[in-house]
C-alpha cells in the first residue's frame, strides 16, 4: 500500500483538547492537529474526545479521558488491528479486523455492551455457564439436552438461560445438564436444566435432596454432590461405578468431582476417593471393574493437604509443602 502522511486541520470546541492542538481554546480558524502524521482512514468523535484510525490499523486519540474512553492508547503495544471506529458521548468502540469489538469508557446506560459482571464460570464436556452479578445465568455450547434451557440446541454465543425464578449464586454443569443454586443461606433454591433423557433420575431426586446451608456443590458428568455446612456430603444421580458418596463418610471439608469419580478432603485433613477408578485415579484397591464402589480409598501424600481437584480420570492434591522444583519441562 502506498502510504503517505496526511495533515489534519481542526477547529471548533476544544475545552478538553479533543482537537489535538497545543492548547485548550475553542477556535474558528483551522489549526494543524496532532492527529496528523499518518494516512487517515476514519475519524470518529464522542462528546469530548476524538478517535482517528489510520490505514495501517492504528488508532490515535485526543481529548477527555475522565472515563477511560481513550484508554485504548495504553493497549497500542498489542496488535489490535482496527477496522472501524465509533464513539458515544463518553465511550469508544473499536471494531477489530478479527471481527471482535474493543470497548472502553463509560457505560451507565449499557453503552459498552458488556452486561453485568460475571461472578462465576463453570464448564463441563461441551458447555459453559456463567452467573452474572445480577443473578442471571448465561451459557453457551452444546445445549441439545436442554442444559442451556429452551430451545434445546447448540448455542454459538452466550444466551441467557430462561425460566429461572430466583437469583443464582452458583451453577454446576454435568455432561448433559446444568444445575443452578440460589443463595446457600436461604431456602435452598435449585433448578435443573436438562437432561432431556434423564437416565439417572436427577429431576426426580433433586427437590428432596437440596437443603439450605450448603457449603459447596459439585458435579461429575452424571452426578450432583452437595456438601453441607456440617460436613455431610449428599449426592444423587449416576451411581453405576459407585460415583455417589459411600455410606459413613467422616465429616468433609471440601470436594472435587471428576468425570466419573469424586475426591473429598476430610475435616481431619485426609483425602478420600471413590467412583470410577480404572486409570488409578481413585487410588488402590479397585474392584475387578476398576471401581471403588460403596466404599472409599484413603490416598496419602506426605504433606499437609490444602485442596483437591479432579478431571477426566485424573486427581490432583494440593499440599502446602515447600519443595525445590527443578523447573518446567522444555
Amino acid at each position: 500500500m502506498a502510504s503517505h502522511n496526511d495533515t489534519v486541520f481542526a477547529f471548533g470546541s476544544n475545552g478538553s483538547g479533543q482537537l489535538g492542538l497545543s492548547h485548550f481554546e475553542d477556535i474558528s480558524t483551522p489549526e494543524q492537529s496532532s492527529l496528523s502524521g499518518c494516512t487517515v482512514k476514519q475519524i470518529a468523535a464522542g462528546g469530548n474526545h476524538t478517535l482517528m484510525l489510520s490505514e495501517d490499523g492504528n488508532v490515535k486519540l485526543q481529548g477527555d479521558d475522565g472515563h477511560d474512553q481513550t484508554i485504548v492508547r495504553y493497549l497500542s503495544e498489542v496488535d489490535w488491528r482496527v477496522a472501524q471506529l465509533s464513539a458515544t458521548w463518553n465511550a469508544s468502540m473499536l471494531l477489530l479486523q478479527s471481527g471482535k469489538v474493543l470497548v472502553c469508557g463509560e457505560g451507565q446506560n449499557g453503552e459498552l455492551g458488556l452486561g453485568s459482571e460475571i461472578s462465576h464460570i463453570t464448564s463441563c464436556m461441551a458447555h459453559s455457564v456463567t452467573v452474572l452479578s445480577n443473578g442471571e445465568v448465561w451459557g453457551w455450547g452444546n445445549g441439545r439436552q436442554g442444559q442451556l434451557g429452551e430451545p434445546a440446541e447448540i448455542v454459538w454465543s452466550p444466551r441467557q438461560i430462561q425460566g429461572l425464578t430466583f437469583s443464582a449464586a452458583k451453577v454446576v454443569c454435568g455432561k448433559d445438564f446444568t444445575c443452578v443454586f440460589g443463595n446457600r443461606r436461604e431456602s435452598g433454591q435449585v433448578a435443573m436444566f436438562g437432561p432431556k433423557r434423564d437416565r439417572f433420575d436427577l429431576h426426580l431426586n433433586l427437590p428432596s435432596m437440596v437443603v439450605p446451608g450448603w457449603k459447596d456443590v459439585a458435579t461429575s458428568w452424571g452426578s450432583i454432590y452437595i456438601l453441607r455446612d456440617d460436613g455431610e456430603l449428599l449426592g444423587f444421580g449416576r451411581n453405576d461405578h459407585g460415583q455417589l458418596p459411600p455410606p459413613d463418610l467422616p465429616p468433609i471439608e471440601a470436594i472435587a468431582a471428576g468425570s466419573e469419580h469424586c475426591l473429598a478432603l476430610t475435616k481431619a485433613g485426609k483425602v478420600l476417593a471413590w467412583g470410577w477408578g480404572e486409570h488409578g485415579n481413585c487410588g488402590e484397591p479397585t474392584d475387578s471393574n476398576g471401581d471403588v464402589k460403596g466404599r472409599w480409598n484413603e490416598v496419602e501424600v506426605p504433606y499437609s493437604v490444602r485442596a483437591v481437584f479432579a478431571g477426566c480420570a485424573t486427581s490432583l492434591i494440593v499440599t502446602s509443602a515447600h519443595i525445590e522444583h527443578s523447573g518446567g519441562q522444555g
Partner: protein
Amino acid sequence: MADNIYDEIEIEDMTYDPTLQIYHYPCPCGDRFEISIDDLRDGEEIAVCPSCSLMIRVVFEVDELPKPEGGSAVQTAATQVVAA
C-alpha cells in the same frame, strides 16, 4: 456387557472424521469412543474407547449414513447430511 454401556449417543452428537472415516465422542477417561463408518454400515452400534473399558451405543439409522465413495448424485445429498 450391558453394564459397560456408558451412554447412548445420537450420531448427530458425534463428530465425524472424514480422514479416518470414523465417528467419535469424548470418553470420561479423556480419550474418545470411536467407531468406523464401515462398522456402522454393517449394523455395528457399539463404539469403544481404546484407553478404557467403557463403550457407548450409537443411535442411528443405517439409511441416513453418508454413502460410500463412488456414488454420484446420491453422494452429494449424503454429504449434506454429515454437515447438518
